[in-house]
């Protein structure tokens, strides 16, 4: 099938590339745009390792064709830190609270948590667990991921931080 021109905004930059209509967004990002932060874990929209933020929605980019995202605003893990390199509160929280081990789920987890906190800046533990239930982690058992998100929420809300990682 002939390739078509696909344009979108990724991490604040207008990008354009040729791709087949069947090109999945995850492959478009990883292979055409060299944004290898989002990963492929399950291929069937269960694990969330490929999660990106697409027009203000957390999306599993393995289950979206790049062409469907034409004109969209996309944010990947590579777009989370500030331009000066300062880590986002979530990135900091994941490190502080030992919210990651192998790191493979982490980009999707952080990007998902970002949208969760946008919609619910003060989530309870139950809301966090429900809010990240589309992202699987095989290493951490989630407990410290929950803490990492709580850390970020506290920091973003300007309240003091309490507990350390276990």
């Amino acid at each position, binding site marked *: *099938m002939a390739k*078509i021109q696909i344009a979108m905004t990724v991490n604040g930059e207008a990008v354009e590339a040729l791709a*087949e*209509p*069947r090109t*999945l967004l995850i492959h478009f990002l990883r292979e055409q745009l060299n944004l290898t932060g989002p990963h492929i874990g399950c*291929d*069937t*929209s*269960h694990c*969330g390792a490929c*999660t990106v933020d697409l027009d203000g*929605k*957390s*999306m*599993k980019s393995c*289950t*979206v*064709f790049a*062409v*469907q995202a034409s004109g969209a605003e996309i944010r990947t893990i590579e777009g989370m830190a500030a331009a000066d390199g300062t880590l986002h509160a979530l990135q900091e929280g994941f490190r502080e609270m030992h919210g990651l081990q192998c790191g493979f789920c982490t980009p999707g987890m952080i990007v*998902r948590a970002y949208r*969760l906190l946008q919609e619910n800046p003060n989530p309870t533990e139950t809301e966090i667990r*429900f*809010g*990240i*239930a*589309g992202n699987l982690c095989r290493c951490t058992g989630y407990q410290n991921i929950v803490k990492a998100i709580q850390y970020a929420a506290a920091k973003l809300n300007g309240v003091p931080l309490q507990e350390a990682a276990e």
Partner: protein
Amino acid sequence: MIPGSFAYHRPSSVQEAVALLADLGTEARALAGGHSLIPMMKLRLAAPDNLVDLAGIKELKSIRADGGDIVIGAMTTQHEVLASDLLTQKIPILRETALQIADPQVRYAGTLGGNVANGDPGNDMPAVMLCLGAAYQVTGKSGERRIAAREFYQGAYFTALEPGEILTAIRIRVPATGHGYGYEKLKRKIGDYATAAAAVVLTMTGGTVASCSIGLTNVAETPLWAEAAANILVGSSLNAATVKRAVAAAEAITAPATDSRGPAIYRTKMAGVMLARALAHARSRAS
């Protein structure tokens, strides 16, 4: 997992979409949220030559009151169902159900129209639509028509939708003020289809059931409307013996497959347990 090749179309109106589907013939598929179709394509269990993406059609995205009905555009996502004050207020069972569908990411993408139209018996909304007595507005080359949800489902992935027709909206009569409702779903984990699930909407008058409707999910090739079970309950106080009879009547119409969720007998029994729990929940909410 890599999907096969296809040509991509993005019409901006229902008319254009319908014309495209008519022109492209049987190898074209309408694409809504894509979270059912794209995995099938990646597994190469579906290989359409053409995809007609409905995302560009603005008229398919709306939630509005129309007299005593609420009309929901087919491209309304589960996330938008959850975010809608109107739906939460008027038809709260939709929110309760949407919360139990898939996971957050999938709810941002998955649409109400896709969920009810693709005929997957594992989908949750169809049984709720049977329960609510919803009607589906569909448009094809020969025009628009309305199909009762209760007449829509004919088999697994087999519906009353004619080739080339697309589902554009769901019309639901707002249940009576003070109605009770419940959607109880047994699943293995977040993201799973139901082992069995039951939707109940009922009204109570002076301690007895004035009206009752029941839908069952994923315990047959189609969603089930458990009319006989509901009729048993009307006029009762939902006492244990009557509920037991209704549960038996509901179980009797199930014909689930044996799968990783459990053997058929288990899934039938779970339909009964979910129904009993949904009834209790609905009753506790009715005023």
